């Protein structure tokens, strides 16, 4: 039975629960907008990275270069699209 629960994944799950709780502090405590957003950004991205590395085994084959490049590229363009759009349509209107 024990071999079905590898320590790495159990720890990963525990850590993701911790991150969720930390993110929840934004709701339960009174933070400024900047601090709150920082907390959310950090917890969300750490948790996403955790999923990719621990659960999705992104780095286990010789294709890992392609896989990581693919994710970084998508992430970069996603961020450019989001913030570029906000710049054009909201912040600099």
């Amino acid at each position, binding site marked *: 039975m024990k071999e079905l629960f590898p320590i790495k994944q159990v720890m990963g799950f525990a850590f993701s629960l911790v991150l969720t709780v930390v993110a929840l502090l934004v709701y339960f405590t009174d933070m400024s907008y900047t601090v709150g957003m920082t907390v959310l950004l950090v917890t969300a991205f750490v948790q996403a990275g955790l999923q990719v590395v621990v659960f999705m085994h992104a780095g286990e084959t010789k294709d890992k270069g392609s896989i990581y490049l693919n994710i970084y590229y*998508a992430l970069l363009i996603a961020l450019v699209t989001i913030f570029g759009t906000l710049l054009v349509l909201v912040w600099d209107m």
Partner: protein
Amino acid sequence: MKVDNSLPLEYSTEENNLKILGFWIFIGAEIMLFATLFTAYFTLVNRTGNGPTGAEIFEITPVLIETILLLTSSFTIGLGIHAMRLNKKKATMGFFIVTLILGLAFLGVEIYEFTHYVHVGAGLQVSAFTAALLTTLGTHGLHVTLGLFWGFFILLQIKKRGLTPETANKSFIFSLYWHFLDIIWIFIFSFIYLKGMM
């Protein structure tokens, strides 16, 4: 077909390797798909027209339940793949079943949430904000729904055909999909719900 026995089943043939890399690239496309939805959401979040704002309609309890359900299901599907690599068919199927049940529960809570929104006057047609909110959540929900069917079919195939290079490959790809949905949910949870209620 060449089968390389030194590798886990899901990587054991050339075709399987192609499929896994192809699916990763599909995930890249999905990242952009959800990024576009987030773009629309962030742009329209304050354009509530005559409808309610996010802070007025969001409730922490169902959201928290959904988050825990999906996080746990992501954990169990990971265990399922681990069991598959140990070539334990029963355990694999067990973890798959747990995952699908958790997913179903998630979907149930989400449906409750949607009816709640409609009930408090935040239906799809009310304002640009509600349209963007419900479309973003709905797209994620739709992915989960499709995932449930897909996972169920794979489960049937494992039961019928055992752990072969094909079924193992499908299961692994399904697990990638499921983890990805969890990642998207983390972002929805953080930047739609928590930011909206902050």
